[in-house]
Each structure stands twice: as structure tokens, then as C-alpha cells.
């Protein structure tokens, strides 16, 4: 099999979900990566370490324009003869994968969480992670959009050949006027550890406890929907059915009841810790570890214990 993996490097770096996509591709077949970011050839050559044999880069695409990126991928598919295209389902992938599918008239499996099954079916998340679908792609060319943080990154020690590539991107129809960078060191959608607060924290002035714990853990912060709706926290922190869906390794929820719409955004987490005063809070049913207690007492203690742990390890 010949595989083409598209990764978004417009941020100037190789994100973890890009490494996952390359690892995934190289387990299916001989993998070429195509990308368009302002990133050095040395950095791109390091993609060989995740199994890529070749990297094609077209640095003429400088904005996130789904039409241009679709042209790039379609051109690369033609020149490599790839039969499978892998795209990580990050914010860029969400816009691009569907366009590429329509361009190539190639079936797209969105939200893959594992390698193709023995019969070629692809297991994807459906119903906000409450179930899996097994998708059959009916076309010879196949496109798979991989859910971030669903497979481990594997290294091979290899190095990839990097080539400049003309993706026939055409002119951009999208003009970027301004970029408003999100505050905080760790971005929620790709965070491995997340500390989250709900209405039980009573007011925005109490979020220091959440931020302090997040800081010692190196975690991102999140919140339930009412907390974003009342304006205690910014919209982009809202997780759940109508917010961001996340799949961190660890999700710590304090003062959140665990409504089904909230769980829909976090039930892909590997480990869930719930801190709630109410032993009957529904969240405990979805939790791996629970503390029945007051977040105002537990969060500072947890922060102190993590600091102690970090000092020893």
C-alpha cells in the first residue's frame, strides 16, 4: 500500500497529533508526508523517525485555506500514486479531509480511533464517543481522518528525504486579518492532562485553584458549559457535546455534576478523576477515581501533593 499523510505545520512545528498520523500511516504502508508550513528541512526530515520515507513540502501556502490545501493533497496523491490518505482530525483536518474526499471521490472514514480492522473496516467514534461505528469505504482510494490522541507515537530511528514540491495550490480566497492567540501554555484540544471546573466552584474568582493545579501538572484548563455561558471562563474551554471533545490521558473534574452532555465531550479520556461534594453526583459512575469532598479543600491539597510528587520523581 502507498500512503500519503497530510500534516499541518503552519504553526512552525510538528505537533504530537502529526506524529501520530505518520505513525498510523507507516503501519498501513510505505508513507510519504505532504505539508506546507514554515518549518526547516531538518525538522521535516525527523518525520522519518515515525516511519515516513519521504516528505514533500510546498511553502507557498501560507494561510489555512482549505481549497489550497486540498489542491496540494490532490496533487501529491497523483504524483505519489497513493491509495490511502491519512489526515489528523485536528482543526485543520476537519476542514480539509471532507474537501479532499469530495475532490477525489474517495470515501472518508472520520474519527478513526484504531488501525483498519482485518476486513478493512475502520472503527470510528460516533454519538460523541458513546459508541463506535465500523465504516466500510466503498472506493479504491481511501481517506482516513484520525482522532488525535487515540494511538501511541512510535519511533523507528529513521530519517526522511525532504523535497520541495509544487502542489498547484492556486491563489488563496481567504485573507487572514488577525490572529488572536489563546492564553495559557497548554492548548486544550491536544492536552494530555486536563483540569476542569464546573458550577460547583461558585464563581470566576475561585478559578485560581484550578489554574494552580493545572500549572504544577502541566495541564490545560477546561470547564462545563454553564460556566462558559455565564462568562466565568472563555468559550473555548467549554467541553462536552456542544463544546470541544477531548481525549486526554487524565481528566480531573471538580464541581461538575457529570450531565450526559458533559460526559459526551470527555468520555474518551483514559482516566477520569471526579471531585464532588455530592456522593450521588452522576459523574462518579463514569469516573475511575473519585473523591467525595469539597473542591475548595481538595484542589489545593492535590496541588501540594503533586508538587511533592514532582520533587521526588
Amino acid at each position, binding site marked *: 500500500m502507498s500512503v500519503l499523510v497530510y500534516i499541518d505545520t503552519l504553526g512552525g512545528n510538528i505537533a504530537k497529533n502529526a506524529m501520530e498520523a505518520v505513525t498510523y500511516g507507516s503501519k498501513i504502508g510505505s508513507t510519504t508526508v505532504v505539508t506546507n508550513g514554515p518549518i526547516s528541512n531538518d525538522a521535516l526530515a525527523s518525520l522519518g523517525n515515525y516511519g515516513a520515507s519521504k516528505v514533500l513540502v510546498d511553502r507557498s501556502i501560507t494561510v489555512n485555506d482549505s481549497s489550497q490545501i486540498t489542491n496540494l493533497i490532490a496533487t501529491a496523491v497523483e504524483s505519489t500514486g497513493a491509495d490511502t490518505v491519512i489526515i489528523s482530525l485536528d482543526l485543520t483536518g476537519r476542514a480539509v479531509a*471532507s474537501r479532499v474526499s469530495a475532490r477525489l471521490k474517495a470515501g472518508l472514514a472520520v474519527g478513526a480511533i484504531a488501525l483498519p480492522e482485518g476486513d478493512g473496516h475502520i472503527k470510528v467514534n460516533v454519538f460523541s464517543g458513546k459508541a463506535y461505528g*465500523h465504516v466500510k469505504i466503498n472506493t479504491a482510494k481511501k481517506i482516513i481522518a484520525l482522532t488525535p490522541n487515540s494511538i501511541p507515537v512510535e519511533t523507528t530511528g529513521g530519517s526522511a528525504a525532504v523535497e520541495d514540491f509544487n502542489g498547484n495550490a492556486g491563489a488563496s480566497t481567504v485573507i487572514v486579518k488577525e490572529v488572536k492567540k489563546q492564553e495559557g501554555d497548554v492548548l486544550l484540544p491536544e492536552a494530555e492532562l486536563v483540569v476542569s471546573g464546573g458550577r460547583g466552584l461558585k464563581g470566576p474568582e475561585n478559578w485560581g485553584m484550578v489554574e494552580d493545579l493545572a500549572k504544577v501538572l502541566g495541564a490545560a484548563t477546561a470547564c462545563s458549559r454553564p460556566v462558559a455561558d455565564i462568562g466565568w471562563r472563555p468559550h473555548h474551554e467549554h467541553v462536552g*457535546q456542544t463544546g470541544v471533545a477531548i481525549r486526554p490521558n487524565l481528566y480531573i473534574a471538580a464541581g461538575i455534576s457529570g450531565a450526559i452532555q458533559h460526559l459526551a465531550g470527555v468520555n474518551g479520556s483514559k482516566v477520569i478523576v471526579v471531585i464532588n461534594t455530592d456522593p450521588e453526583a452522576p459523574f462518579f459512575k463514569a469516573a475511575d*477515581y*473519585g473523591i467525595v469532598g*469539597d473542591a475548595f479543600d481538595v484542589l489545593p491539597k492535590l496541588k501540594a501533593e503533586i508538587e511533592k510528587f514532582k520533587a521526588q520523581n
Partner: protein
Amino acid sequence: MKLLVCISKAPDTTSKIDFTDNNTKFNEAGVQYIVNPYDEWYALVRALELKETLGGSVTTITVGNAGDDAIIRKALAIGADDAVRINAEANDAYYTAFQIAEYAKAGGFDIVFTGKETINYNGSQVGGMIAEIMGLPYISLAEKLDMNGSTATINREMKGGIEVVEVNTPFVISAAKGMAEQRIPNMRGIMAARTKPLQVVEPVACDELTTFTSYSLPPAKSACKYVDADNVAELVNLLHTEAKVI
């Protein structure tokens, strides 16, 4: 402005998710269908606001069978002028997008709105596919949209923050949280919706590129392990030695 809003149905967010027929079909017993929240709260309401300030019309389009008419009437009650239903099962995103694009091509719409995703399949597919089939720009995950003549200024979610972009009509946009506030239909709207036009159009031929052949449920979670609030050190220990996440 001529605006087209894609409306799909979705199971109510509290629905129990399970499957029948040897795990090949979603079990609809007792399931209440609603308008997909992104389509209703954000896409439709922002389209209505634009019409109210700039004039024009809002048409909704749904690929579905007669069972979808109830949610289409809800969109009309909220304020859409008229509705189109393409009379087909929406089993595959490309098939669905192809039907919508086929209708939209002839309509001369300035903006085609979709929701960010359907909450049952979470695919975020249909909008991008419509844009590609029609050869239009596609701005996804938009949380703010303002018009100035034929130029739109849009805030969209991007890795690490928000990007403010400009694009000219016609274009396709997918609406996310922040774009507008949910509207509750009033009695007058509900009455008026009964007589607003709902045109049923037969589908055009198109292959389905994908098939969901079966479904499965995640393994049941093992019971929660409780740690005493006075023994937080034990939690840290478990997260390290047992769960291996720190």
C-alpha cells in the same frame, strides 16, 4: 442576501445509545429527534439575524425522509422563510452533500450555512464536501460572522486561538458556538410555520462512498475507586503507579 441553511436531525442529547438488528441499526425506540443543535442555535439563528438587518431570505434544506418534517417545521417556526427536503435517506456524507450542492447550484445563494457537526455522527464532513463540489471557499468552525457588502469577516477556531479572516460571497461556512444565541419559537412563529412552503425534491443519482456496516459500544467502565478527601496523597500514588498517567 439569499441564505441557505443545512438542517439535519439528531437524537435528543439525553438519548440512550444502543443498537438493534445484530448491531447494524441505531435503536430508535423511545428516541426523541431534535434539530441538530449547531444547525439550530448557531447556523439558523445567525442567518435569520443577517436577513433581519440586511434583507433577503432564509431557506432551509434537509436530506431526509418524511419523518424529518417535524424538525423542518421547527426551523420554520424559528423564522426561516421556506424549506426544501430532498427525499432520501442521508446515510453517507458525500451523498448528502451532493444532493445539497445540486440544489444550491441553481439557487444563487450568497452563503450556505452548515452546523459544525451532527451530534450523532460528529463527522464535520458535509460542509466541506458541499464547498468542494460547488468550488467555493469553506470557512469551518466559525464563531462570529459579520457582513459588509459582499465581504464577510469571520472569526474561526484555529490551532491555538482564533483567526479573523475575510472572504467574499459566495462561500460555505460551518457554525460553532458563539455565532448566535438560541431562539425559542413563539406561538405566532409556530402557527406561521404550518403554512410556510416545504418543497419536497427527489434526489439525483449519486454513489455512497462509505457504509456503516455495524456499531459497537465501549466496554463498561469498571467501578469508581474512592479515595478519602483526607488522603489525597493516595490519589497521586494511584495516578502514578496504577493508572500511570503522571
